[in-house]
């Protein structure tokens, strides 16, 4: 019998906020939150909560990794259903009145022949058209409700986020891979920018908003801070927390406070005042997956009803769709599992295990890869008591050999010291980009 420390909650419980990515304080004082869902691809939803945390409205039908939900003037909600590559408008009684899949005679194509690819933000403009950030097409576009592209900015930006309209008619856009914030005018000229491309200045900025005082509030996501920058480029205010938080978006309220989405840092939305005090917070997170007292089924002998190795989670959090768990049926003495992926991003096969700070663990596994374009490896992520990872980026996590290309079965082992404040570890096999990786004889023990 597996020894389970914490069983995990049922998946997809409404209101369980795993990964908030967009937030908005509505005129009635409620807060609209877009939750991308858990790492296995469940639980994405748009919820509206009141000031005491009651869920007064929600929508989740068919959503996959939805990045934004914005309340329209007509009372409907505009949703970017990111992994489904579509835009939805739903009424308060949850009827879909606009679905971009229906554009182009049901092909989902826009008037320029393209298809939305990983859209992450959509705002309604004054004239009722939409400004959409179409991340994997490296552009932001203005479209009408019939899918006609009226304007497009597709130069200069790589994997942009959160393009939003300014009062002067310009657009503020986060050029995330370019590590810059750009303000562009309707003639597609850059009229203001911040960030020199260096990650010390901005690292994967995820949102920027223009404040009434003329400054710009930037969510500098991988530097784990929010910074307010003057038109001259001076940092005049900043906010950070002690732990490694994953801030993804900031929204300014009418009360000169800021709502911040703390994604999978601590799975919560906080409201911060100018003094840096957290004046309001919404956290309703229960881990969807169990935590085991020790590695369980590391030799993949047991298989569950979904055909996955029992006690293991196929995590698709970093994937943009696609990818699956596969089995090497030829393996002796029994089939062993693997991952297959066909696009950029990453897939994980993982299990959470209880650990204590200061302990040293050794991990060993045999790995085989076939045509891996990016890399594949076993690594460990350590988490604090609130479910927040203790690492800034994936490359900081203790890891075994990074396998690229094709490799026959190779024994790989490494040691990891449990950092301060960690309460559990996630032991993972990951695959970045195209290819296949297989794993067998996985061990995890104290040294």
């Amino acid at each position, binding site marked *: 019998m597996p020894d389970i420390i914490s069983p995990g909650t049922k998946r997809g419980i409404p209101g369980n906020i795993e990964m908030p990515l967009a937030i908005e304080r509505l005129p009635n004082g409620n807060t609209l939150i877009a939750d991308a869902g858990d790492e296995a691809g469940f639980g994405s939803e748009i919820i509206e909560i009141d000031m005491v945390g009651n869920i007064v409205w929600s929508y989740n039908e068919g959503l996959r990794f939805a990045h934004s939900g914005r309340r329209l003037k007509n009372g409907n909600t505009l949703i970017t259903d990111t992994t489904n590559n579509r835009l939805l408008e739903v009424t308060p009684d949850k009827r879909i009145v606009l679905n971009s899949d229906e554009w182009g005679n049901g092909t989902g194509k826009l008037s320029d022949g393209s298809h939305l690819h990983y859209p992450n933000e959509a705002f309604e403009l004054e004239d009722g058209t939409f400004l959409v950030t179409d991340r994997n097409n490296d552009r932001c576009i203005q479209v009408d409700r019939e899918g006609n592209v009226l304007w497009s900015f597709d130069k200069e930006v790589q994997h942009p986020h959160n393009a939003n309209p300014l009062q002067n008619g310009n657009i503020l856009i986060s050029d995330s891979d370019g590590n810059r914030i750009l303000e562009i005018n309707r003639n597609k000229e850059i009229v203001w920018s911040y960030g020199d491309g260096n990650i010390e200045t901005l690292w994967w900025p995820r949102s920027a908003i223009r404040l009434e005082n003329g400054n710009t509030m930037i969510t500098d996501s991988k530097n784990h801070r929010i910074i307010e920058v003057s038109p001259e480029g001076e940092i005049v205010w900043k906010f950070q927390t002690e732990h490694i938080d994953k801030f993804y978006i900031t929204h300014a309220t009418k009360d000169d406070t800021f709502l911040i989405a703390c994604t999978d840092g601590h799975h919560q939305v906080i409201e911060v005042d100018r003094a840096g005090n957290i004046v309001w917070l919404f956290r309703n997170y229960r881990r969807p997956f169990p935590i085991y007292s020790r590695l369980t089924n590391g030799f993949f002998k047991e298989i569950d009803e979904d055909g996955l190795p029992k006690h293991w989670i196929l995590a698709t959090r970093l994937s943009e769709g696609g990818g699956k768990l596969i089995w090497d049926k030829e393996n002796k003495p029994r089939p062993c599992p693997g991952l297959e992926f066909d696009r950029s991003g990453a897939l994980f096969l993982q299990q959470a295990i209880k650990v204590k700070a200061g302990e040293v663990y050794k991990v060993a596994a045999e790995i085989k890869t076939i045509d891996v374009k990016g890399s594949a490896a076993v690594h460990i992520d350590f988490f604090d008591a609130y479910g927040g990872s203790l690492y800034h980026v994936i490359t900081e996590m203790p890891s075994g050999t990074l396998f690229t290309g094709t490799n026959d079965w190779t024994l790989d082992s490494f040691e990891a010291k449990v950092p301060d404040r960690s309460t559990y570890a996630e032991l993972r096999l990951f695959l*970045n980009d195209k290819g296949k990786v297989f794993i067998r004889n996985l061990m995890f023990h104290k040294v």
Partner: protein
Amino acid sequence: MSNKDEILEKKVNDSKKVINEAFDRFPLENLAITWTGGKDSTLTLWIIRQVCQERGIKVPKCMTIDEGDPFPEIEKFLKEWSTKWNIDLEICRNEDVLKAANYKLGATVKVKDLNERNQAEIKRIGYEEDEFPFEAESYVGNHLMKTVVLNQFIERNNIKAIFQGLRWDEQPARRKDEYFNFREGGELTPAHTRICPILHFTERDVWDTIFKYNIPFCELYKQGYRSLGAKTTSKKLSDIPAWEQDLEHTGERDGRRQDKEKAMEKLRKLGYM
């Protein structure tokens, strides 16, 4: 004196500081040295010996692990220099596993043929098969032949701290290692401290120091071996002597650093997480 000489001298002196601190912190009888016969552990032993001479004390007990697949050249080297340097060297092996494997590499070992201690170790690390191949590529074999042997040596001799010849540049995972590394004890594992006095030496520094001070080394390096482990898993990357190879641009253990850095860069760019 050249700049390079000064740098090497400073590196040796920094190692001596670590070793002196170890002698201040631990009684001599509770200290030991792992000596594989490879260049790094031989350099470590050589520096420790210098410190012992300066302090007028005897060199701590040394141990070497016989994994059942040794190079005769290393055995010869260890024998020759332990005699010349008057070293108390204990050769340790897991006799129970060797017996179960009939002293044959590649043989299949049945878990039930092993003694209680070895069976308990197998359970502890989470190995779930009934048998394993007796070879260096087998993790369980490796664990029983190396880790368990080291732990038992530590227990048997009441060792509190043990010197090792690890270096930061050996692999990225080592980069955060500290000179003194306390290992909490646990089930079947004795608490002890690992001391690594030459962490700051690069592979090049090791060779430069060996030649500067005329420190002995095993002849296999002259044949082209860069790194020595078990006989079947140590591969020559070239036929020219180790120190004449392009140490800065090829890996001691693999030759694909470029690929790895590209993969790391790609990973670093991943959006979420």
